[in-house]
């Protein structure tokens, strides 16, 4: 059993993509954020004395790396989708992931999400937000007959933000939580649209689907739910994201 | 004074007046005076480092000289004098002054990307702007002169050293020079191949070409030269007809130079044994 092995070894290896403010990112050389802080609380309580080895990986390889047993669990905000849930087990949700659009402040040509028709937009390769964007675009094409002019795929969201600021693209599909700190620090450049473009989705942490990992997932779920009940989760959301979400304990079947 | 020199110079092929040359702190030529008459054959000998090559290279301004004057066919080489100060000429002006001078190098310096004929006609085509047909006619004649008409289409790396050097001579000849300079033209050759190059040079000499030849081939010098010049330490130490110079050297340095040479070549020489 994976959990037993971890306890025996005294070490758990977790994978993180530390370029995903405010969930996971690097500050002063340390990986910090909503996720890491929550993880620490859970591990301190249920895996005391176990050393945490945290790998910082690009997002594209993070789930395949989990299958490849490069690490025990993915502690990074992963949008729970049908395709992913088929291959991996997710924890109970840690935050809402519903996708919206980031645009340039004062860009009057985009008032509703449908206004991105005919414009270049972008998101991150392999991300659920990209998938949402593509589905939204398909809907636009079907309904209005005209989709976006181009969907650009970036290796990281930071590059997408930079390109939005530069004007190469007109909007970035991203979850609200992620852009909150960005919009807060650069309100003169970035503006997040209230209206979302996809179904309600949630972020969770992921582990392998084998029975081997069941006890680890159970432990994580227990820890997360306790934090939620105690109100710690809301506190952390306020601290890192700036607002709180109403969160289900179990999302059941993913919406996409 | 300069006017007088200029008039005098018109008759000589090359005139050197107090030519001096320094590399850094190393004075390589020390006030050399030398007149090369038209149709004269001059051989320059001397120990390694005595300045022979530098002298030759100065005569065509491949090396600038620092002091004195050099006149080629009466015209000051490499510099122009205006208001009493002298200014370096442009490359084009210098090339014009030495246009009748050809040079053959120790290392042949053929261009490897052209055939023998290509080497010979390149300057005719590119510098003189001749048509291919005109140039090839002259080029083939020049190759004929050095006995290499049949190698016209060979690239240099397919030729022996002796053949390469003969092509180099043909290349110089094609420009129809009145003066030819040679810097150790046979030193880079295998012993067997020296003869064929000397033969071509002998032939040029017999046709009245003005020649200045830096060489170690004493036999050739003795046979062909009107005058042999012995250099040492950047100066001309002794000069004169080869018979006099080789049999009755005046300066001890020349005597010693000849002794060293003889002790190697004469002792047990085949001519003594077979003689």
């Amino acid at each position, binding site marked *: 059993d994976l959990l037993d092995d971890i306890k025996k070894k005294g070490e758990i290896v977790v994978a993180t993509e530390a370029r995903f403010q405010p969930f996971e990112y690097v500050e002063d050389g340390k990986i910090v954020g909503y996720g890491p802080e929550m993880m620490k609380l859970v591990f301190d309580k249920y895996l005391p004395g176990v050393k945490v080895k945290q790998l910082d990986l690009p997002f594209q390889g993070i789930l395949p790396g989990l299958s*490849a047993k490069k690490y025990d669990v993915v502690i990074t905000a992963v949008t729970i989708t049908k395709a992913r849930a088929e291959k991996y087990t997710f924890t109970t949700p840690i935050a809402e992931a519903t996708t919206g659009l980031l645009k340039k402040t004062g860009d009057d040509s985009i008032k509703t999400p449908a206004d991105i028709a005919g414009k270049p937009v972008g998101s991150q390769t392999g991300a659920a937000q990209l998938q949402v964007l593509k589905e939204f675009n398909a809907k636009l094409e079907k309904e209005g007959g005209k989709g976006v002019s181009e969907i650009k795929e970036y290796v990281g969201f930071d590059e997408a933000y930079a390109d939005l600021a530069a004007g190469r693209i007109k909007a970035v599909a991203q979850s609200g939580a992620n852009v909150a700190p960005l919009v807060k620090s650069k309100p003169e450049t970035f503006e997040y649209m209230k209206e979302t473009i996809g179904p309600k989705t949630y972020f969770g942490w992921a582990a392998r689907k084998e029975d081997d990992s069941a006890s680890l997932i159970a432990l994580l779920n227990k820890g997360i739910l306790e934090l939620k009940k105690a109100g710690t989760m809301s506190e952390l959301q306020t601290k890192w994201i700036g607002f709180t979400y109403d969160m289900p304990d179990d999302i059941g079947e993913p919406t996409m | 004074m300069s006017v007088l020199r200029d008039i005098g110079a018109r008759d000589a092929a090359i005139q050197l007046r107090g030519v001096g040359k320094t590399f850094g702190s190393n004075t390589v030529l020390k006030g050399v005076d030398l007149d090369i008459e038209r149709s004269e054959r001059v051989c320059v000998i001397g120990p390694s480092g005595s300045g022979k090559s530098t002298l030759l290279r100065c005569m065509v301004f491949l090396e600038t000289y620092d002091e004195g004057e050099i006149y080629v066919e009466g015209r000051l080489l490499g510099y122009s004098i205006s208001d009493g100060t002298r200014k370096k000429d442009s490359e084009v002006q210098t090339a014009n002054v030495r246009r009748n001078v050809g040079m053959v190098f120790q290392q042949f310096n053929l261009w490897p990307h052209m055939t023998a004929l290509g080497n010979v006609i390149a300057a005719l085509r590119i510098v003189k702007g001749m048509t291919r047909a005109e140039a090839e006619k002259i080029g083939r004649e020049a190759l004929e002169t050095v006995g290499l008409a049949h190698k016209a289409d060979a690239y240099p790396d397919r030729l022996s050293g002796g053949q390469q050097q003969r092509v180099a001579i043909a290349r110089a000849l094609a420009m129809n020079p009145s003066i030819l300079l040679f810097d150790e033209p046979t030193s880079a050759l295998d012993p067997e191949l020296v003869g064929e190059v000397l033969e071509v040079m002998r032939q040029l000499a017999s046709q009245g070409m003005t020649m200045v030849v830096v060489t170690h081939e004493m036999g050739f010098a003795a046979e062909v030269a009107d005058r042999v010049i012995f250099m040492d330490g950047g100066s001309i130490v002794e000069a004169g007809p080869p018979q006099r110079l080789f049999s009755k050297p005046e300066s001890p340095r020349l005597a010693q130079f000849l002794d060293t040479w003889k002790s190697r070549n004469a002792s047990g020489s085949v001519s003594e044994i077979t003689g």
Partner: protein
Amino acid sequence: MLDFTAVIAQLPRMAAGAQTTIWISAAALLCGAALGLVMCAARLSRNIFLRALAAVFVSMFRGLPLLVVLLILFYVPPNFGVETTPLTAALLGLTLNTAGYQTEIYRAGFLTVPPGHAEAARMLGFSRLQIARHIFLPQIFRVTIPALTNEAVDVVKSSGLLSIIAVTELLRISQQIVSSTYRPLETYLVCGLFYFLMSTAVSSFGRFLERRLTPKPA
């Protein structure tokens, strides 16, 4: 327009990243030198099997982008039950990559030593190993310094790709800084300066060695 204040605050972190870059590069270069020499010996050996092996090795690692080698080394072996940590994958990838090049550098070096040098040694009774050790190696080292210097600069530069497999070297740290400062141009310019300083240091050292080991002409 350019504002470096945010980046300057992060200089210590970038310096730390540069340190990682330096030690990983140095380690890869050394391991690569050992492997390269072995491969070079194989390439020059009389055994046709060894020669073919070395030829494939060289062709492969000179023909594959380092980025791809790293991706393969990082993600593929675990599927066959072999564990690779990011650091071992990084070191292994860089080492294999530079070894491919160093093999060819050493081989070219070997070819510059006139065969007469080996014949003279054979005539004096040297064994093959003694010839390699006492006649070839010292001379090869001298003539290969310029090429090795270039290779060292290349390794330092290409170590930036290790960011892809989670090694927090200079470039990865710069990306992290961009994430928090939203100042890509300034950060990357400073990062470039770091790389330039490292490359210049390496090539200056190479030139210094070259000058030290090449006797000045009389």
